[in-house]
């Protein structure tokens, strides 16, 4: 009886393991990863499971963003733990780099090459034959809107064009995972919008995009999830609104524009989750801080249904990445 039971348990374990393998083959997995540079901490005890879509790495300088990216690309080996990219360990470059494209933040190009030669050369390094390399070069240049400038020397490119040609070389071999270190730096607003649209398109096609950026409002706009890093530790990760909801020590701030803010203030103030209710300077709005945004929105529904107060708009003031960054990292980085 006990033998039969243990067999059943072994079978269950096997099924569980194979299910986990299948799941991991679609994820980027950090399993208790640490990286030390001698005695200096790069990142410590990172456990992450990154799904498809756009994931942004956010944190101040020295937080560990680049270390995390270099660990993902296998350019750095972890001091402890293991990383798998779609089920492939990062110490297997031949398989890994078929699926991974990396765009570094460094502005470095072999001398004298044109944009298309640059991309084609690295496709040849990847092992594509000349015809295929030619074809993929054109596709990559088209995707970053540089087809017309493909035959010009990179040395004559503007900063934005150089940024885009680097992006093109990262996507040229059709990877499933794209790691982009500060890809929006140096781009003018127009090109920046185009590039974000391209990221969204790639994500919609099923790619994993890992992006590091300092431009918080753009990260907020394009990311499916964020990973906040500080001093080598993952401070928070997930959907930004989910992260914000969990920050109970920082009540959510909501601005309600309405015709009778004083009456609304009286109505909300007796609720235990409302921490603060303050009239707006123009007397046409109420600024509320609440520990439970969901309950507060339900309350507002009731108010609207009663029809006494005419509510014009409801806007969360700090339900975005900038606010989360400020709460979790800002004070510390300022302090340091």
């Amino acid at each position: 009886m006990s033998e039969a039971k243990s067999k059943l348990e072994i079978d269950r374990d096997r099924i569980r393991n194979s299910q986990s393998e299948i799941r991991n083959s679609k994820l980027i997995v950090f399993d208790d990863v640490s990286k030390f540079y001698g005695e200096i901490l790069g990142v410590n005890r990172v456990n992450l499971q990154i799904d498809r879509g756009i994931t942004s790495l956010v944190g101040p300088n020295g937080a560990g963003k680049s270390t995390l990216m270099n660990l993902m690309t296998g350019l750095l080996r972890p001091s402890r733990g293991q990383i798998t990219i779609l089920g492939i360990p990062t110490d297997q470059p031949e398989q890994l780099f078929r699926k991974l494209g990396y765009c570094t933040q460094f502005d470095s190009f072999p001398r004298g090459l044109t944009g298309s030669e640059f991309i084609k050369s690295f496709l040849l390094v990847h092992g594509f034959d000349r015809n295929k390399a030619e074809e993929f070069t054109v596709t990559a240049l088209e995707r970053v809107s540089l087809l017309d400038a493909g035959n010009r020397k990179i040395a004559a490119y503007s900063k934005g064009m150089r940024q885009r040609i680097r992006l093109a070389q990262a996507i040229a071999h059709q990877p499933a995972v794209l790691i982009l270190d500060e890809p929006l730096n140096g781009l003018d607003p127009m090109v920046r919008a185009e590039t974000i649209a391209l990221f969204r398109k790639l994500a919609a096609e099923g790619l994993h995009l890992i992006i590091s950026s300092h431009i918080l409002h753009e990260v907020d706009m394009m990311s499916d999830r964020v990973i906040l890093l500080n001093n080598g530790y993952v401070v928070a990760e997930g959907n930004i609104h989910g992260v914000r909801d969990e920050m109970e020590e920082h009540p959510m701030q909501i601005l309600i524009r309405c015709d009778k803010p004083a009456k609304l203030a009286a109505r909300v103030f007796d609720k235990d989750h409302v921490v603060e209710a303050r009239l707006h300077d123009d007397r046409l709005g109420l600024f509320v801080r609440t520990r439970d945004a969901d309950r507060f929105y339900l309350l507002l529904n009731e108010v609207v249904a009663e029809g006494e107060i005419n509510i014009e708009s409801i806007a969360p003031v700090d339900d975005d990445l900038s606010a989360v960054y400020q709460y979790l990292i800002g004070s510390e980085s300022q302090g340091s």
Partner: protein
Amino acid sequence: MAVHEQTYQQYLGKLTPEWSRFLVIPRHAFRDVFRSKLFTAFFVICFAPLLLEAILIYLHHNVNALAILKVNVRELLPIDAFFFQAFVNVQAGFAIFVTLLVGPPLVARDLRNNALPLYLCRPFSRTEYVLGKMSVLLILLSAITWVPQLLLFLFQSYLEGVGWFVENLSLASAIFIGSVVWILLLALLSQAISALVKWRVIASAALLGLFFIPSIFGEAVNSLFQTRWGSIISLFALMKNVTAGLFGTFVQASVHYTNWDGRVGHEIIVNEPPLWASWLALFMVCAICLTLLSRKVKAYEVVR
């Protein structure tokens, strides 16, 4: 939450063999190198001694030409081990200058521009990268050393006959091994210095210094201590001995000093270091270069 569909198709077609991918590096490097007219002119000049060698071989077998010139080239300059060794040494000299012009920026430029991640985030290892960079020099230097000289050896064999070819096959191996050891040493040294020193001019100067300063120092040691062991630190002397060993012209007791002790003069015979010592010293230089390359050629420098 965004909906992601797996609509893109990863390339699953045939790929080129892994071993051939490093050749992408020399292909671009050659174009860059030959863009300089000065270098191209110098590279052409490197073939002048080979042309002279070919002429001498031709004259050796052309009775009419010898009659016109009224000189006996056969007696004046016999085509033997010394003949080929001399030209191997001449080409080795040219190889140094080609290395000085081409070698220093190869790795240094990538390190300076943080371009290594660009190469190494591909199915491309550090070894393949170093091999690719070294092959730039290996191919260029082969083109002015052992390749044409083996062709000239075949030319001589063709004119002299199969018997001479069979009898002197060891010369062909000496040309090949001697030249390959030299160009391998040059390539490794220049790449190691290029990886250490990120600025071209300084790297070139360091490479030049590495050839000449130990040689001068070694000669000073030889003179002061009446020995030849000072040659063990001179790359020129090491290669001279190794090449002589390969061509079978190595004489260990080669130097006679006359030491004037007051008014009385007497002769001292000093021995060259044995061949195994020269080989060992070269091997150690190569090992140091490889160690340096493995420490410096990394995608990211770990700052401690």
